[in-house]
C-alpha cells in the first residue's frame, strides 16, 4: 500500500534521509523509532508529500507521490495524519475542525458531514466537547479530536508523527487506547513513537532509524528479541531503562 524506494533527501550538504526503502502492506501497523534527529518525522512526512525528497520514489496504492502530475490534495485526502502538536485549527470548534475537510475536500453536504462528525466525537468520548475550541480542551482531548479529524476522511491509512510526545503522562493512555482500537480494526498505520509498549502490543513491524538511514526493519518480536545492530540495542537500552 505505502512503498518507499531508495528515498534520499538533502538540505544543502546535510543528508536528512539516506536511501530509505520501506513497504507497508494493507492492514499492517509499522512503528518507526530512533533517536531524535534520526529522520523519522521527515520520513513519515515524505509518505504524503508534506516533505519533498531529493531522490527515490514514494507510492501510495501505486500512485507516485513525487510525480508532477499527481494531484497531491486528492492523494492526501485518502491518508490521515496526526501530528505531535495536534495542529487543530485554533479558530474553529472541535466539530468544525472535523467537518472542514469533509465539506471542502470531499464535498459532502453539511448534514452528512455533521453526522459523521458527531459519530466520531462520540466514539472518541468527546460528544460533550463538540462546541469547544482547541484552547479549551486538554492535550489528550485535542489529540483525540485530531484523530477524529483524520478519520472523518475515511482514510485508507493513517500516519502518526509522535502523537503522544507532547502530552502529559496521564493523557498518553487515552490517546494510545484510541490508536490500539484503530489497529485492532485493521487500519493501515505508520507510527513514529517512542512508546515501546504500544509497539510491542500492536505493531507488526518495527523500523529503527539513525542518521537518516533505516538501520533495522524487523518483525516486532524479532526486534525486541534480538535487534541486530548495536545502535538499536543502545537505543532500546536507553529508553527501556526506566
Amino acid at each position, binding site marked *: 500500500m505505502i512503498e518507499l524506494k531508495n528515498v534520499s533527501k538533502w538540505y544543502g550538504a546535510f543528508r536528512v534521509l539516506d536511501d530509505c526503502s520501506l513497504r507497508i502492506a494493507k492492514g499492517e501497523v509499522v512503528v518507526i523509532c530512533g533517536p531524535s534527529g534520526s529522520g523519522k518525522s521527515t520520513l513519515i512526512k515524505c509518505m*504524503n508529500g508534506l516533505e519533498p525528497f531529493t531522490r527515490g520514489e514514494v507510492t501510495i496504492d501505486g500512485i507516485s507521490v513525487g510525480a508532477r502530475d499527481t494531484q497531491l490534495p486528492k492523494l*492526501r485526502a*485518502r*491518508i490521515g495524519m496526526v*501530528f505531535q502538536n495536534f*495542529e487543530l485549527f*485554533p479558530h474553529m470548534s472541535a466539530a468544525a475542525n472535523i467537518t472542514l475537510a469533509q465539506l471542502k475536500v470531499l464535498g459532502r453536504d453539511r448534514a452528512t458531514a455533521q453526522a459523521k462528525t458527531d459519530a466520531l466525537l462520540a466514539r472518541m468520548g468527546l460528544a460533550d466537547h463538540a462546541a469547544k475550541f482547541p*484552547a479549551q480542551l486538554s492535550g489528550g482531548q485535542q489529540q483525540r479530536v485530531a484523530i477524529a479529524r483524520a478519520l472523518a476522511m475515511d482514510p485508507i491509512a493513517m*500516519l502518526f508523527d509522535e502523537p503522544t510526545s507532547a502530552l502529559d503522562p496521564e493523557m498518553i493512555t487515552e490517546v494510545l487506547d484510541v490508536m490500539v482500537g484503530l489497529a485492532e480494526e485493521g487500519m493501515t498505520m505508520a507510527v513514529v513513537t517512542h512508546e515501546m509498549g504500544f509497539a510491542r502490543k500492536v505493531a507488526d513491524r518495527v523500523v529503527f532509524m539513525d542518521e537518516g538511514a533505516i538501520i533495522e526493519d524487523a518483525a516486532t518480536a524479532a526486534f525486541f528479541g534480538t535487534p541486530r545492530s548495536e545502535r538499536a540495542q543502545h537505543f532500546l537500552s536507553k529508553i527501556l531503562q526506566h
Partner: protein
Amino acid sequence: MGSYRWNWPILLADPYYGWIVSGFGNTCLIAVLAWIIAFPLGSAIGIARTTELRPLRFAGTAYVEVFRNIPLLAQMFLWYFVVPELLPQDWGRWVKRDMPYPQFLTSVLCLGLYTASRVAEQVRSGLEAIPRGQHHAGLAMGLTPAQVYRYVRLPVAFRIIIPSLTSDFLGVFKNSSLALTIGVLELTSQARQIEEYTFAAFEAFATATLLYCAVTGIVILAMRQVERRTRIPGTIAIGTQ
C-alpha cells in the same frame, strides 16, 4: 501666552466652520478610500511573500522594498509631477487635464499603494507567526494550498495582526495630511488656511489636533471591540493593553 489674543469663536464663524468640516471630511474620505486600496492589495502581496512560488515572492518583496523605502512625501510628488510626464503623451494629458479630482485621486492612489506595503508586511508576519504544522495539517487533510490559506492560515493571521493593522489604518489617516502638499484641502491644510486668513494659529491647529486624536480614540475603541468579538475562545487576548 504673551500678547496672543484667543479667538475660539472664529472657528464657528462662516466660512471657517465649513472649512474644518469639509477638511475633516476629506481627511476621512482619503483615509478610507486609500485603505480600500491598501487592505486587499497589501493582503495579496503579503500572501505572495509567503508562498512557495519564487517569482511571486520576489515580486512581493520588490514591491514592499520600493514603497516603504521612499519617503511618502517624495512618492506624492512622484505620482503627481513625475508619472504623468512619463506616460504616453495622450494618457499624460488625460491625467493632467481630464481626470476628475486629480489631486484628490492622486493622493488616494499614492497613500493606498504606500500603505499596501505596510499591510503586506503585517500580513506576512501574521502568516509567518502561525506554526508550520498548521499548514501541514491542512495539507494532510487534502486541502489545496489555496484552501489552507483561506480556511486555516488567514483567519488566524488576521486575528493576530488586528492591533498592527489598526495602527496602519491610523497611519493612513495621519499620513493623509501629506495630501496637502499636492493641493488637497484636508484637515491640516484647512487648519493652515484658517491660520493664514485669521492668524488664529493655535485655535485652528488645536482643533485639528483634537479631531485627529478623537478619530484615533474612536478607531482604537472600535478595533478593541472587533478584537474582542473575534477572539478565539480559550486564548488570551493578543496585543490589547
